[in-house]
């Protein structure tokens, strides 16, 4: 029985990991997967089309918390389900069809009224097609212009919704003009015609300018093409044409329109644009053989000059499909329950299983973090999203150490809880779009990112871990009889040890931050909110240590202080970011702010619970 359970659990974990490692499969005859791995430059970074598809959909669909599975669903009007890359292919190459897909999220009721739409007309009551909003574009633009002078922090819910909708529509329209001209029936044929008649057309225009007889039709064609390409050059979103000078020239990427305008100098239509037009033609015409052949030839050509870009894009698309953090999250949950259960039954065996599960989850998450670092060429923490990943990495890393020394499943429970929580936070933070962002000039320093930011975030992780261990103490003590004196002492030692590490990391991190500030702004300390947040964590950890050394608190007091550390850290991590928003916006509560309040209240409740008189605790009762 024991062995069977252990075996089943391990097999389950293996199956989970294996599932995420399965290579992505094409939904039909078209090599959509191969297409999704082509490199483009968007938002300052070379990324695969797969990332563009996923992050654009995240933004346009405005995924909300309650229907995450449903909201990523894209249906064609004939109820066929599309994956993000098929959707992108349709937007790029069959824009008229793509206009009928209900992807654009509109939640605000006033905005719906303005657009003459009813909730029931949308997919999942909130998503509408471009065709449905197209008639109101002028009105949306007018409302957005009215909103523009209002400062972002004080905009009403309606105004925020208008601005969001406008920017989503702009993104969508820019995508459509990226590789082909969206109003052209057969762009490939148009390009061939343009190429073949270029000489004659140029002659005609020259003759016209010289006042000689000329071919009016050819001159007109040339002007039309010029206007069309100019439009594509101005709005095209994807910089899909790689630099002429090769991989090192990161500023040489341009969009198809710009590359087409170059034709007037070179006399040759850019081969990359031609390849994409060919792909588009075969995709729109349903010709999978042509599509796959062009794709293969194009990739073979690309790999000669851009091997690194292709390799990175392939890796990134694989990474997107594997979703290592989701797998790790599931494993953490599993490990958490196994570890909790091990306190009731089979402590040795289940404890060990939990440890291995945690280790597996941690390794997977770590591999994910390392992959992100390689893709970005940056230290692990560059934005709020990656800080959540790293807090989990640090906290679970410490838990593995604790579990190695103590073997009492407490480390595993804490690891499961924190690992899951941080990955969940990261998941919600990832809904804003692409999480691999470029660094603003002032932050563009790998040295300081690697030292200051990493240590500060490690301090967050350690402080949270101490708080979580204290929660375990309180919950086990108040609600179960399982907290005997040796376990309680062990927990107290763990909390104390982790608080020591937290002090070390947050102090060093904060002081390093001061030095960075001295280097770039000329003052060591400016009392700005983010600095103060870090300082408060340092002070609080110092309070815990001094209170314990001075005998001002005993075990339970230590636990209460550690739980309060959770509040302090959460405030520094998220609260200070809300200062400009949450506390300052009128009548509109940011959801992050709400969650923060709930978290603070929950921690306060635990502190209150810990202060119940010992007779009310189930543990420590005298027989």
């Amino acid at each position, binding site marked *: 029985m024991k062995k069977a359970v252990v075996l089943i659990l391990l097999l389950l974990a293996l199956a989970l990991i294996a599932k995420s490692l399965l290579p992505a499969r094409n939904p039909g005859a078209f090599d959509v997967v191969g297409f999704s791995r082509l490199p483009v430059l968007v938002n300052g970074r070379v990324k695969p089309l797969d990332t563009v598809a996923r992050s654009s959909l995240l933004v346009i669909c405005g995924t909300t918390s309650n229907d995450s599975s449903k909201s990523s669903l894209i249906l064609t009007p004939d109820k066929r389900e599309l994956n993000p890359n098929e959707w992108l292919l349709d937007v790029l190459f069959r824009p008229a069809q793509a206009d009928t897909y209900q992807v654009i999220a509109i939640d605000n009721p006033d905005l719906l009224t303005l657009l003459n739409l009813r909730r029931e007309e949308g997919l999942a009551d909130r998503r509408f097609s471009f065709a449905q909003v197209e008639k109101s574009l002028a009105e949306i633009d007018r409302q957005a212009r009215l909103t523009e002078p209002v400062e972002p922090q004080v905009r009403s819910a309606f105004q925020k919704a208008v601005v969001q909708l406008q920017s989503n529509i702009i993104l969508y329209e820019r995508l459509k003009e990226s590789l082909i001209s969206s109003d052209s029936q057969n762009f490939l044929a148009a390009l061939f015609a343009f190429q073949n008649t270029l000489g004659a057309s140029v002659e005609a225009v020259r003759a016209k300018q010289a006042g000689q007889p000329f071919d009016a039709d050819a001159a007109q064609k040339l002007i039309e093409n010029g206007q069309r390409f100019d439009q594509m050059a101005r709005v095209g979103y994807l910089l899909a044409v790689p630099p002429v000078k090769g991989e090192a020239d990161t500023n040489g990427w341009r969009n198809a329109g710009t590359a087409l305008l170059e034709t007037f100098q070179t006399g040759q239509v850019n081969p990359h644009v031609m390849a994409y037009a060919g792909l588009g033609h075969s995709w729109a015409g349903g010709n999978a053989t042509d599509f796959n052949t062009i794709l293969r030839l194009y990739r073979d050509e690309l790999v000669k000059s851009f091997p690194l870009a292709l390799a990175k894009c392939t890796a990134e698309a694989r990474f997107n499909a594997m979703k290592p953090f989701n797998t790790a999250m599931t494993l953490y949950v599993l490990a958490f329950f196994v570890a909790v259960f091990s306190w009731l039954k089979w402590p040795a065996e289940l404890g060990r299983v939990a440890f291995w599960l945690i280790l597996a989850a941690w390794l997977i998450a770590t591999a994910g973090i390392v992959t992100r670092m390689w893709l970005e060429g940056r230290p692990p923490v560059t934005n709020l999203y990656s800080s959540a990943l790293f807090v989990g990495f640090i906290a679970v890393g410490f838990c593995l150490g604790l579990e190695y020394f103590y073997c009492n499943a407490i480390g595993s429970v804490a690891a499961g809880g924190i690992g899951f929580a941080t990955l969940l936070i990261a998941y919600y933070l990832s809904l804003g779009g692409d999480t691999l962002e470029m660094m603003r000039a002032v932050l563009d320093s790998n040295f300081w990112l690697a030292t200051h930011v990493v240590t500060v975030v490690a301090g967050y992780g350690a402080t949270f871990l101490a708080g979580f261990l204290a929660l375990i103490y309180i919950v086990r003590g108040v609600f179960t009889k399982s907290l005997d004196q040796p376990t309680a002492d062990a927990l107290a030692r763990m909390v104390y*040890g982790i608080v020591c590490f937290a002090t070390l990391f947050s102090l060093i991190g904060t002081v390093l931050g001061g*030095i960075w500030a001295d280097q*770039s702004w000329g003052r060591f300390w400016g009392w700005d*909110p983010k600095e103060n947040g870090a300082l408060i964590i340092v*002070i*609080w950890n110092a*309070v815990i240590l001094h209170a314990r050394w001075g005998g001002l608190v005993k075990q339970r007091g230590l636990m209460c202080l550690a739980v309060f550390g959770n509040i*302090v850290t959460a405030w520094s991590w998220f609260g200070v970011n809300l200062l400009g928003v949450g506390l300052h916006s009128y009548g509109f509560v940011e959801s992050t702010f709400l969650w923060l309040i709930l978290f603070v209240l929950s921690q306060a409740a635990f502190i209150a619970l810990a202060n119940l008189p010992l007779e009310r605790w189930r543990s420590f009762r005298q027989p």
Partner: protein
Amino acid sequence: MNDTVRQFRDFFVSLKLTVVLLVLSMGLVFAATLDQVNLGVWAVQAKYFHSFFVLWKIPGTDVPLPVYPGGYLLGGFLLVNLVSAHIYRFKRSWRKSGILLVHTGLMLLLVGEFLTGILQEEYQMALNEGQTKNYSESYRFNELVILDTTDPKFDDVVAVPEALLTTGSALQHPKLPFRVVTKEYYPNATLSLRRGATGENPSLATAGIGPQITATPQPLTYKQDERNWPVVFVELLGPEGTLGTWLLSPQLPAPQTFDYGGHSWRLALRAERAYKPFSLTLLKFTHDVYLGTDIPKNYSSRLRLTTPDGKDDREVLVYMNNPLRYAGLTFYQASFDPSNDHNTILQVVRNPGWLLPYLSCVMMTLGLVVQFGIHLLGFINKRRAVPATPA
């Protein structure tokens, strides 16, 4: 030692005091952070950190009540607590060497922050490409300047800080043949041209451009990206009576001129200047964004540094995270005017205590590593000695 002294000493030595002070400082930092939303970072620093008490005005009156200990008080007590603890309580031993290091580092940090608070000067230098300046300007304080420009070779300058220009104040300076009387002072005001409509109050100003301008007082602003524009009406009084009343504001583009007693004078209210024994010329400002975004990638200013004695004449490059340190001053790439890509704004800081944080950082880090290292080694050795028993 009698009992009172001992009690007094015990109070300052106690760990309880440490904990109380730490908790109080945490409260102070927290409140100050929240208050930045209303007051902005400068006013918050003055109110909470560079003060002995946080004052709160009883609503409707101007009576300030001390409601919370301020930064200087808490910092000072912490320092005393720390020093006396080390004198009376700590036994010097190798096991405590880490703590000693950490605490010494902390003392240095507190002293350094105090020094910074009283000694640091922050100015800005805005330069267009090709422009040369030998002074930097304050972005928070202004000064009234009266220049005697009679001699074409040099200007004789009398500068009065804005803080002295309260309504009704009068100034006399040996270099000036007249008294300067402040008739009205607005800490923040907007200017507009008078349209000559009837019903407008007549201007206080009687000379210069003032009579054509209306100044409307505005509430003080604390926003990070806005500044206060003061307006002052000054009357100059010679022995034989008034010379006139001028309206002065840093928003006026040029100084106003007049002649008196055979001398030519100029009069202006302008950003406070700090002159340097060297000058900087902006050769080239560059500013890149990431391809396909508005996210700034880097800014940098190529400058030429020259001294009048000709000993220094070289090009320097200031960019993000790479300031120029020269003559006790540090020049940082702070900003630029987004409307024009050929101008730079450098932050110019004098902070004689800048090295202390670096020193204390090293000491505290080393101290914590030593101290926790000792703990950790002890813990591991103990577990090695006694084979792990099931908990």
